[in-house]
């Protein structure tokens, strides 16, 4: 078990990379760090690897501090986002580097390099130098170099982010299977919601050096702690309606800016204004305009995504994204009605989630 305890990390005088961060990574789990660029994901990997030290706070392993343990003694393997390939060595030599450093026998090195190259689909480039590889190939070499030796923890910094869609999709599955087989502890960073949800046993959502929420995919998806998490998990992202709580028949109701009611308000929220109601595109159904109980709006943009479409509907002053079947024939400017699944509403005050009765 690796832990970051009250870790604060500053670069120079002003740049704060991590703020009082606490995080546990459990043995054998596939932990995904997910957040926008600059959120502090790579800093966490560097701290775990020992490549940088916290400004304050502690890095621990099984309870013992390893803050000052140099990287070469941590038995951590890492794949770097910018590949970090040795341009003066061939692919085979790059892959062999960690094994040579550990003094593995040449015969075994050869076997291992071939095996890893096979898994990653790069056996035909083993003799080339990194300068002659495509971006995708380099990334696979970088990944290969990280997984070629047994390590206590694997730190993978956006290891498949530069692959093309088809390969990324395939590698995602391979990686997951590999992780299951190896029972290895893996920390993986990404900026893609799909990757995070698909891969993570648990996911930590980072924003501006803070851990916004950590939990399983389902926890994050169904019970986002705040609007940041809500908007960041799920593809397409959640839409938000500005709502307030008004008294109505059968209890307080959530009412949008232009007076449309969208459902029951959570208890304890009575009288509060300035709330946000988050709704996923899959929780909305398109109905005829004027259907009672449905939000009225006007289609702004329709995007065709092949199997489905996304329509952006303007209701009052709120933009709402609706996932539609591919054959839905909507045009910009068309008036529509939206029925909201009240059980899948997320209510937030001051950016933080409120417990909803419905949920």
């Amino acid at each position: 078990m690796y832990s970051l305890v009250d870790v604060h990390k500053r670069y120079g005088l002003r740049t704060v990379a991590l703020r009082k961060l606490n995080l546990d990574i459990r043995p054998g789990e596939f932990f995904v760090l997910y957040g926008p660029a600059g959120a502090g994901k790579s800093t966490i990997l560097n701290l775990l690897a020992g490549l940088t030290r916290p400004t304050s706070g502690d890095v621990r392993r099984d309870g013992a501090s390893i803050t000052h343990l140099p990287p070469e003694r941590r038995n951590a393997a890492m794949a770097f986002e910018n590949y970090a390939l040795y341009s003066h060595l061939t692919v085979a030599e790059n892959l062999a580097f960690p094994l040579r450093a550990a003094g593995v026998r040449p015969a075994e090195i050869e076997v291992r390099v071939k095996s890893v190259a096979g898994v990653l689909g790069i056996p035909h480039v083993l003799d080339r130098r990194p300068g002659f590889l495509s971006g995708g190939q380099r990334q696979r070499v970088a990944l290969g170099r990280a997984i070629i030796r047994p390590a206590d923890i694997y730190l993978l910094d956006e290891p498949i982010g530069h692959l093309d869609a088809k390969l990324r999709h395939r590698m995602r599955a391979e990686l997951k299977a590999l992780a299951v087989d190896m029972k290895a502890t893996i920390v993986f960073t990404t900026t893609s919601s799909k990757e995070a949800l698909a891969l993570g046993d648990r996911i930590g959502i980072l924003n501006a050096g803070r851990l916004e929420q950590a939990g399983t995919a389902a926890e994050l998806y169904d019970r986002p702690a705040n609007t940041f998490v809500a908007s960041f998990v799920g593809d397409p992202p959640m839409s938000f309606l500005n709502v307030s709580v008004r008294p109505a028949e059968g209890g307080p109701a959530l009412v949008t800016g232009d007076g449309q009611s969208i459902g029951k308000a959570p208890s304890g929220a009575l009288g509060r204004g300035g709330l946000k109601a988050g709704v996923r595109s899959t929780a909305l159904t398109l109905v005829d305009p004027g259907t009672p109980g449905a939000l009225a709006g006007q289609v702004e943009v329709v995007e065709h995504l092949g199997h489905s479409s996304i329509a952006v509907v303007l209701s009052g002053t709120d933009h709402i994204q609706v996932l539609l079947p591919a054959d839905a024939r909507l045009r910009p400017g068309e008036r529509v009605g939206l029925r909201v699944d009240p059980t899948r509403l997320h209510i937030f005050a001051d950016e933080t989630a409120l417990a909803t009765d419905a949920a």
Partner: protein
Amino acid sequence: MQRKTSVVVEILRYGAIFLVLGFFVFPIFWMVLTSFKPEEAIMVSPPRFFFTPTTENYVHALHDKNFLFYIKNTLIISVISTAIVVAFGSLAAYSFARYNVGDGHILFFILSTKMMPAIAVILPYFLIFRDVGKTAVGKSLHLGLDQHGALIVSYVMFNLPFAIWLLVSFFQDIPRSLEHSARLDGLSRIQVLRRVTFPLAAPGIAVTAVFTLIFCWNEFLFAYILTRKAASTVTVGVESFFTLQGILWGPVAAAATISVAPMLIFVLVMQRYMVRGLTFGAVRG
């Protein structure tokens, strides 16, 4: 970019390049030409372009003046100085580049020694080496006057700032993640330096070596003050061609050609590195 450059512009461009090259190459061409001129074809007006070439100047320089002796000294001193400069400079530059040791202040101090006029310290140097040369350490390291060690130390001192200056940029151009990766693979900092960083910085180190070698090879003042004969270098050796009969232009040209030739060949071989190195990593897109 689509630029329909007219033929006229291209002709003008190459005309200009030709003129530029003429200006920069001609003096060296003239020097080489002079080295093959018989004595009676040198100090004549108007200058002679056509003459029966002779090797007598080379014979004079190499045989009579034993110029190879100076070349040998210069080679020993320059190569060792360069090796030390590159070694010390790389270590220090790496420290500045990666650890920002001294937060710029130590770097400033080292760079500022480049401002020092050599003349100001040449006599103190003379006295230091006179005394050091008498000590046991000085004797074993040949640090005395008219010994190779004294010049080597001086050249190391005077070339370190520039070398560090160059190298810092080179090291900064190497992504940290490469070193990080190697350290995670179990290499210590020193092993990382040896097996990853220095090989990757090879072009930069090569450029630094080229410049240092050129500067050492061409240095005059220290060589002149700190040596007498045994450790004299080519720039001092050329002085033995200034005689009571005047400057022996032909042999001087031959000696100069001989002494410049290794540098020219070296520089031409390294020129691709040099151009890459000359950007100092200071231009960033």
